């Protein structure tokens, strides 16, 4: 037996577990559930509730099994074999119930409450407590999302430890002491954390409840099903609870490979989108107006428009792996176009293509166990929240984290930040490559070996050379490299080659042997590469160089970094095909609408940022006559007189597997040539977690808790140089437009930078952009009352 294993006896059963295992967990492995309230497998041991007593042979006192690690030869008796233990647990339960109200029938936790279960299982039938119970005003709002009933609280400190140890958002604390101890927030402060819902889920009683679920359902009313969250590329395991076919609650499922036991508040509370009023489930074809029709007629209309036409295809971030694969093949073999893209920015270079090969993937566990991590071009808390938690976990385990960004992230308490102007990332990374950076990051990475990581956000693709520079940092210092795109479908679309430069597995159409690999599976590919990227497709459409614009789960008016260009493209292209859950603002332009099945109604796989491909199953029947995207693509191929070669998912999988296996082999990175930055201020933008995005539609409490109106951030030195002050208005003028927003003066942004969030209420930042997410900007003081977009090309 290895020295890392320990053998002990629990209730007469011998078991061998890893050294350091707590007794309470070892007991689970022999099928003994020791009752507990404060213990949580992902929180540090507390020993606070004292419910989990066991008897350890040779020890005079009972021990709490949640705080004591196993030892060789240890003999443990639980409540199943020791009367003393059982008596102690009953006695402790009596203490816990003294002040607990008898309101189970109206408690949201009723029916799924550990305290209720314990009390029913072996609590006393009558209380010996005859004094008055402690009372508190209730429920007390902790935020628009979370309510607290202090009378139900058993002070296990799971919630406060979560805020302290896991999220680092320490707004929830234990106040006072003794019998007066209570969970609280500070007056005037909210539990403002994108992870706040987790405290509700881990509360072992009904003390913390979620406002959106308050009094909505009882456990026996619910139909539960497991799936994967589709809000970002984190790939969190979730359970979706539906009541009469409507989603009423989303919970985190434990998955130590991915999300531990946590999900973010967007994943938890933004579940109304699929059931929103704008959902369309019938194909539409424009006659006089948009008229409902059959799928067959709609697909024929699309096929007619595409026949011999110049087609540009833009996909959003919502596709499953199978959809992306089918689309990649459809474009190259049927629609004869390489004008195909899903990305928000085009300079992904070798970094992106390395990720597309699927080789050398980095995992959450790698992050957790890393020694040195360079995070660049990523605001993990806002973009991939569960990766943010994993980075914090790595820091807690001693990892050194260096974040190279234009705007400081919420890792600030556990990581070093190197703030650089947008566009200066490549220069900063070049210094790390050369070993000339002030932080000595390169040497630290080299020393860390396999435990060195470079985690690069796909936003680096906004700046020529930055992504390749990040890859070169990893290569130079022997670190591993992760390319993190934000949206749930991004990684699958990259692997599938929904990309103008390459097909599945990063295979380029203009490199003979790579093209040959594709044709060996697909047959003849009808196009030469490379094609246009997303913004070039819009430009071509605006310039009358395309006949058909095929938009799949994307709305360029909202998503593309140039609102005016998007509008011209939609106006000028003869045919716009929209394949989505809804039409939204595209309604005036759409020639054909193809209703897609929603994520909840789908079977398939979704690849998270790691490249982990997780299967999802339909949680409910499809709505109307909507179809999975891949089926629409297959149908369209047939309508065009072609054949994608698969009619079932099994057939699709069999073919896709041949091109999906990771391709080893180094993709050369370009030499780093840091761009020269223009003089003056640079505006940059990215979406915050909770914004006006479609996926958060209807999540009103979520927005009330975590949303915020548009703002701009500038460094104090820039603010004073321009006569600007915190809280006052700033007028932002770019080549594309003009806006006035309230200014935050903060050292959290790099000097020379103006940060505006991409899509908060009050400003759609793409009205200020001209094709990239970064642009030159002039700033000037403005009347604070005039917060609004005052300009912008809306022609």
């Amino acid at each position, binding site marked *: 037996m290895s020295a890392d294993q320990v053998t002990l006896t629990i209730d007469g059963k011998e078991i061998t577990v890893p050294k350091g295992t707590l007794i309470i967990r070892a007991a689970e492995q022999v099928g003994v559930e020791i009752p507990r309230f404060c213990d949580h497998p992902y929180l540090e041991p507390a020993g606070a509730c004292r419910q989990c007593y066991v008897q350890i042979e040779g020890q005079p006192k009972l021990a709490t099994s949640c705080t004591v690690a196993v030892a060789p030869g240890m003999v443990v008796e639980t409540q199943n074999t020791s009367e003393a233990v059982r008596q102690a647990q009953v006695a402790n339960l009596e203490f816990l119930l003294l002040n607990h109200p008898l309101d189970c029938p109206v408690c949201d936790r009723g029916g799924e409450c550990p305290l209720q279960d314990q009390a029913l299982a072996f609590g006393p039938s009558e209380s010996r407590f005859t004094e008055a119970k402690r009372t508190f005003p209730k429920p007390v709002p902790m935020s628009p999302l979370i309510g607290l009933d202090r009378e139900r609280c058993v002070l296990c400190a799971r919630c406060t430890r979560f805020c302290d140890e896991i999220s680092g958002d320490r707004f929830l604390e234990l106040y006072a002491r003794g019998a007066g101890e209570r969970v609280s927030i*500070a007056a005037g*402060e909210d539990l403002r954390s994108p992870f706040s819902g987790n405290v509700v889920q881990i509360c072992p009683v009904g003390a913390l409840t979620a406002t959106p679920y308050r009094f909505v359902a009882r456990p026996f009313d619910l139909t539960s099903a497991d799936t994967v969250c589709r809000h970002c590329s984190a790939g969190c395991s979730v359970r979706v609870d539906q009541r009469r076919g409507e989603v009423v609650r989303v919970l985190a499922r434990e998955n130590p490979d991915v999300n531990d036991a946590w999900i973010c508040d967007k994943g938890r509370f933004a579940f109304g989108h699929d059931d929103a009023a704008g959902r369309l489930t019938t194909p539409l074809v424009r006659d006089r107006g948009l008229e409902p029709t059959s799928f067959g007629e709609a697909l024929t209309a699309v096929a007619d428009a595409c026949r011999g036409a110049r087609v540009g295809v833009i996909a959003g971030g919502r596709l499953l792996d199978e959809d992306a694969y089918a689309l990649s093949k459809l474009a190259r073999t049927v629609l004869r176009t390489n004008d195909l893209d899903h990305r928000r920015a085009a300079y992904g270079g070798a970094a992106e293509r390395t990720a597309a090969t699927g080789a050398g993937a980095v995992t959450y566990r790698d992050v957790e166990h890393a020694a040195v991590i360079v995070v660049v071009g990523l605001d993990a808390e806002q973009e991939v929240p569960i990766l943010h938690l994993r980075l914090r976990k790595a820091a807690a385990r001693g990892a050194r984290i260096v974040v190279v960004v234009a705007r400081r992230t919420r890792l600030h308490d556990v990581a070093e930040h190197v703030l650089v102007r947008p566009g200066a990332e490549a220069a900063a990374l070049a210094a790390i490559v050369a070993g000339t950076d002030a932080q000595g990051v390169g040497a630290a990475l080299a020393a860390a070996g396999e435990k060195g990581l470079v985690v690069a956000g796909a936003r680096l693709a906004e700046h020529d050379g930055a992504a390749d520079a990040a890859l070169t940092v990893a290569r130079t210092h022997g670190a591993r490299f992760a390319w993190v795109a934000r949206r749930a479908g991004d990684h699958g679309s990259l692997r599938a080659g929904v990309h103008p430069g390459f097909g599945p597995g990063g295979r380029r159409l203009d490199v003979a042997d790579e093209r040959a690999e594709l044709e060996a599976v697909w047959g003849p590919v009808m196009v030469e590469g490379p094609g246009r990227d997303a913004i070039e497709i819009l430009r071509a459409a605006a310039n009358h160089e395309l006949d058909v614009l095929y938009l799949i789960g994307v709305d360029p008016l909202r998503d593309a970094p140039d609102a005016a260009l998007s509008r011209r493209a939609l106006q000028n292209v003869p045919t716009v095909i929209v394949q989505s859950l809804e039409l939204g603002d595209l309604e005036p332009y759409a020639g054909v609408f193809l209703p897609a099945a929603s994520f909840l109604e789908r079977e398939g796989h979704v690849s998270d940022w790691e490249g982990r491909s997780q299967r999802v199953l339909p949680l409910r029947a499809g709505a109307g006559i909507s179809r999975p995207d891949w089926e629409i693509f297959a149908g369209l191929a047939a309508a065009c007189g072609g054949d994608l070669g698969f009619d079932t998912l099994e057939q699709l999988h069999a073919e896709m597997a041949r091109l999906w296996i990771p391709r080893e082999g180094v993709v050369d990175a370009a030499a780093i040539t840091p761009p020269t930055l223009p003089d003056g201020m640079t505006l940059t933008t990215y979406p915050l977690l909770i914004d006006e995005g479609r996926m958060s539609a209807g999540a009103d409490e979520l927005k009330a808790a975590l949303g915020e109106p548009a703002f701009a951030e500038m460094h104090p030195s820039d603010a004073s140089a321009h006569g600007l002050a915190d809280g006052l208005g700033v007028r932002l003028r770019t080549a594309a437009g003009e806006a006035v927003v309230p200014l935050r003066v903060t050292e959290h942004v790099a000097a020379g930078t103006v940060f505006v969030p991409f899509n908060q209420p009050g400003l759609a930042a793409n009205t200020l952009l001209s094709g990239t997410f970064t642009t030159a900007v002039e700033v000037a003081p403005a009347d604070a009352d005039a917060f609004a977009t005052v300009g912008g090309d809306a022609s």
Partner: protein
Amino acid sequence: MAVFEGVVLEDARTILGRYPEAHQRSAIMPLLYLAQSIEGMVGREALREIGELLGITTAEVEAVASFYSMYRLLPTGEHLVTVCTNLSCKLRGAEVVYEAAREAAGILHGEELSPDGLFTVHEEECLGVCDFAPAVQFNVCNHDNVTPGRMRELIAALRDGEVPTPARGPAFGSFKAASRALAGLEEVPAS
């Protein structure tokens, strides 16, 4: 900042200087005393500002402030009268002394603060003067073997603006002054 500004901010920096740079949070307790010396209690704004000075949330500061009984989070009299009623003092008649203090200070039933704002009378746990029980503190200065009569005299003296001489050490003329000494900011010449 409204509480920690000017010389008070300098005092706060002095306090922060007592602790290692990586462990500035240790300064939270003396900073709370400093806030109390300015406002006669620890108010919400002070809690927030201490959080700002230490880089922690207001909730974290309040969690600490509410744990310890010597931080007053509610309006407090100019003079804080604490009467130990723990066993050694109880055996020597402390409960009567406590009642005498409340009566002399004119404190209403269920309150701790006298309506004139002059006195807060607080029943306290063991003050560590069991050898001279009943033990009483006026503004954290000890008075030994206090009888109900002596208690009435002490309160009357303070009402008249006198500061009674404690059993040991210097007298602090108000709760605020005592709080400043508790923050370690009293001038202490080497004797």
